[in-house]
């Protein structure tokens, strides 16, 4: 069931705009502000980070999207770009950094390794995708993805932020008091991380028997 929000009449709005009066909603201006100042956390894990750096430089110019300020501290970051191979040894650190970011926070998993383990899947030392431990908003395939792909992921994330409702039952996690902000950090086990995945975030895909 969706509750239709009272909206301003489009014609009246256009008429006012012609007179120089701009109207918006609180939700609209809130999301507009957030989507245009997404500050990523400054860290890279492998070769995808090189493409991320290229995306932030003059040629691809991530600054156009308000995301040029790569923060060296998780306290000031809104977005975590997991760029590269997440090894099992590194995964607890990545999750802990994610936990230390303030809400609202978003995650882009960049590259084949970050989304699934990529060429190292089922290797003894590589995590099979960071989405096993933290909720990922945008996945980018590619090995490594080109900077344009990262820009596209960024625009996808901006669209997602734009459409997040401020009130109502389906408002995003950071506006709900009982939704968790921290996710359990995996421990080092005998052969693998324990637990191997966070079931509240990720479930194994089911085999479809034809």
């Amino acid at each position, binding site marked *: 069931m969706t509750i239709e929000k009272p909206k301003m009449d489009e014609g009246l709005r256009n008429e006012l705009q012609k007179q120089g009066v701009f109207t918006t909603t609180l939700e609209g201006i809130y999301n507009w502000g957030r989507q245009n100042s997404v500050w990523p956390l400054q860290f890279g894990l492998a070769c995808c980070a090189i493409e991320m750096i290229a995306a932030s430089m003059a040629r691809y110019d991530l600054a156009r999207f308000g995301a040029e300020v790569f923060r060296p501290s998780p306290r000031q970051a809104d977005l975590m770009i997991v760029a590269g191979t997440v090894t099992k*040894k590194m995964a607890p650190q990545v999750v802990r950094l994610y936990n230390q970011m303030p809400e609202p926070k978003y995650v882009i998993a960049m590259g084949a390794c970050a989304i699934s383990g990529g060429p190292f899947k*089922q290797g*003894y030392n590589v995590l*099979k995708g960071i989405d096993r431990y933290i909720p990922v908003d945008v996945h980018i395939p590619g090995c490594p993805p080109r900077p344009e792909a990262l820009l596209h992921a960024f625009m996808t994330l901006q669209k997602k932020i734009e459409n997040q409702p401020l009130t109502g039952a389906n408002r995003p996690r950071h506006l709900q008091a009982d939704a968790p902000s921290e996710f359990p950090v995996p421990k*080092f086990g005998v*052969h*693998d991380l324990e637990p*191997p995945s966070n079931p509240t975030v990720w479930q194994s895909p089911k*085999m479809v028997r034809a």
Partner: protein
Amino acid sequence: METLEQIKSRITHALPGARIEIIPNDSPAGQRSLLVDADHGAAIAQFLRDDPELRLDYCSNATGVDWPEAVVKTKIKKQVIVEGVEKEIEETLETLRSGCLETVYHLYSMAKKHGPVILRLRTENRSDKNHLPSLTPVWRSCEFQEREIFDLYGIVFDGHPDLRRILMWEGFVDHPMRKDYVGPDDYDYEPTPHDDVLEKTKQHQAAEVKA
């Protein structure tokens, strides 16, 4: 640079009692190597570094090899006289090769600009007698690589200044680059063209159903 035979004879001359074997290489590279006994390993390494003719002052690479116990089949051609006619018959000989762990060092000389000389050391077996002398006191560049070999193959280097795991975490059990390493059974279903992955997924899920 001297040939391996010359180097071998000079080492045996300088260090009596050292057992050295030249390992042939059939591949197109044809890079032969010196197999050195573990007891004299450090002394031979010292000799190779300090000898004025060789001056192998740079160890560019140290790596490990796992040789599990295996049946080696070798084909031998024989001349057999059958019914008065000489015939050529191929016979396969099966020999049991005992397992061992091996380290390989690639040595170069920066001063003399030659190399590589490849040095091999083998442990007695793969389980309890897995000690080898560390060559880190001779070539400092071996330190992290020997740690990596220790981590991934389980060769214990005597005389290494800081022998800890380097890639895997403390508390990890087994050595993942050994051929008989069994990884965790965590095959999830995925649409993949790799049959062995699908097979392992089926086994994994069957085990889950039983449990």
